[in-house]
């Protein structure tokens, strides 16, 4: 009897100490509140406002060439929006580089609409009182791949190169804190303040994470894209600024996207 009680007590203690991620035990109240918000929204998502605006911008004639983006090749042929996000990033002949969605939109703005590169890349992220075309376009295009499986080929030598570069960047320690992506995202059960962190070296986590970006960030009242998320990660690590649609950002995206292959896209999603 006494021995059994001791064993039971030991197991209880071990269970408490060996707790997995916060999510496995009890959820943080922040997570619970967000889930309540999601449940109240049901099928609705403020990102829909961006999706509707994005569809308008896709069809709107802009720039010196007074053309719309409707002939833009997003990876499945000119003008094909449905399913295009599932094959990105991808190598494109016309630009000679591997491009993710935002990079591709910048290319099309330059080529089809005649916008200067600086103009096309200007102000990609919205803010209070500031509506920008890019995040709306991303929300619209991604919404047209909702429910479909990520299917990044990464067969072209340049695509393989981008994947390998992205992987190297993920594990590269640098900056004043000697951080790498893997510092926060390289193991189970990590958390920053109240935010549980996915282990992006684990397939199930990277799949779940990738399938929920871009997302409407409630705390910001904006739709945030993958480029935004990576740039903010670099900022949080106190790395030098990650330039918008730079080869490094596309490489990192390629690494994550290919790792997430097979997951059903559920974006634009809702996040804290």
């Amino acid at each position, binding site marked *: 009897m006494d021995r059994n009680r001791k064993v039971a007590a030991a197991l209880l203690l071990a269970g408490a100490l060996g707790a997995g991620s916060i999510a496995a035990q009890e959820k943080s109240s922040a997570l619970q509140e967000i889930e309540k918000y999601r449940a109240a929204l049901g099928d*609705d998502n403020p990102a829909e*406002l961006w999706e509707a605006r994005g569809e308008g911008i896709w069809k709107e004639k802009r720039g010196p060439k007074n053309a719309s983006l409707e002939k833009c090749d997003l990876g499945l042929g000119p003008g094909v929006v449905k399913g295009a996000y599932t094959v990105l990033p991808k190598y494109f002949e016309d630009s000679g580089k591997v491009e993710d969605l935002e990079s591709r939109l910048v290319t099309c703005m330059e080529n089809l609409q005649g916008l200067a590169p600086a103009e096309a890349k200007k102000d990609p992220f919205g803010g209070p009182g500031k509506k920008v075309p890019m995040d709306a376009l991303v929300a619209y295009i991604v919404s047209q791949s909702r429910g479909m499986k990520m299917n990044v080929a990464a067969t072209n030598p340049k695509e393989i190169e981008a994947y390998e570069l992205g992987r190297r960047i993920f594990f590269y320690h640098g900056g004043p804190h000697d951080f790498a992506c893997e510092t926060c995202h390289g193991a189970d059960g990590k958390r920053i303040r109240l935010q549980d962190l996915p282990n992006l070296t684990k397939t199930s986590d990277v799949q779940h994470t990738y399938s929920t970006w871009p997302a409407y960030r409630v705390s910001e*009242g904006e739709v945030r894209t993958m480029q935004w998320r990576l740039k903010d990660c670099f900022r949080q690590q106190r790395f030098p600024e990650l330039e918008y649609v730079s080869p490094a950002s596309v490489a990192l995206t390629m690494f994550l996207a290919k790792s997430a292959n097979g997951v059903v896209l559920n974006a634009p999603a809702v996040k804290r």
Partner: protein
Amino acid sequence: MKIRAAMVGDKVEVKVLMAHEMETGQRKDSKGAVIPAWFIQNVTATVNGRTVLSAEWGPAVAKNPFLSFRFSGGKPGDKVVITWTDNHGDKRTDEAIVAG
């Protein structure tokens, strides 16, 4: 505005997503100047001319407000009309048909 209206039991559940900055008038910009208040003050929902919801909002309501409510006495096919007016005098109206 995005409006969805559907029957839930014998009540109609309406969900509305409004695009609005909802500035409280308390925030300051990067230069230190106060960003003026700009928020929805009144929301009304009518069905076949009957007011089913009337709301007075203030700066506490968040950006891009999401409103969800239920009312009785509605049926599939009814037209729900939502109107908001803000403190600038701007007004927006949208409608949706109650789904089955």
